């Protein structure tokens, strides 16, 4: 007779690595909120100038600002984990050598910064 303990719903609370994993998975929750506000913005843009103004006022609400700030933190945490995983899932081989993971990780952070530069350039008129 053998016994087998069953994994409980709270298994991920038992170890730091599992908590970090669940936190990574949970980054999509504030992301989802930001995506919903963005979709509302697109809908408002389609409706007309007064709705566009109304959307901007809603976005100023402290709760909305707070959750979207949380989404920013979540996106950066996700980026930090995702950039590290990428070279392990798709190692790039040049001849007999594998491209060092640090190069790929740095390249991805450079991509993130480049998008910031692009946005700054787009909004350069009003900055």
């Amino acid at each position, binding site marked *: 007779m053998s016994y087998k303990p069953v994994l409980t719903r709270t298994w991920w609370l038992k170890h730091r690595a599992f908590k970090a994993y669940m936190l990574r998975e949970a980054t*999509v929750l504030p992301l989802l909120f930001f*995506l919903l*506000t963005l979709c509302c913005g697109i809908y408002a843009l389609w409706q007309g100038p007064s709705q566009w103004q109304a959307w901007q006022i809603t976005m100023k609400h402290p709760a909305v600002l707070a959750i979207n700030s949380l989404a920013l933190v979540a996106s950066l945490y996700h980026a930090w984990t*995702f950039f590290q995983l990428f070279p392990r899932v798709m190692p790039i081989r040049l001849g007999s050598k594998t491209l060092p993971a640090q190069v790929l990780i740095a390249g991805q952070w450079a991509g*993130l910064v480049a998008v910031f530069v692009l946005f700054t350039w787009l909004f350069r008129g009003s900055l």
Partner: protein
Amino acid sequence: MKPETELKRSAEPIWWALFSAGGVCFAVFIPAAIVFLAMLLPLGVVELTYTQAQSWYFSIWGLMFTGAVVVLPLFHAGHRFRHGLHDLKVQQHTLVKVLCYGFASALSLLCLGLWCIGYFN
């Protein structure tokens, strides 16, 4: 283990490809999008008039924006949410799958539809 003749190919590569592409977008495009559209814009640091927003969004760039900042991240979120519920031992796998990807598809279609109307008008 099932006998080899009964092995069924999973459709997961499709969802995983969308999830991965969305993951790249979430990491690379979303941080800047949040900072500019959800923080600096409402705080009045930058301005985006209705005319400017309209001419930007209802162009071919708007389609790319929708893909990279809305559609793919939505599928990324749907996929993680689905697997997250499995991790929390929610057993209704088919229902969860339909709801997660259904929600991502519906919202994506809405945004793409709005873009089409605006672009072709």
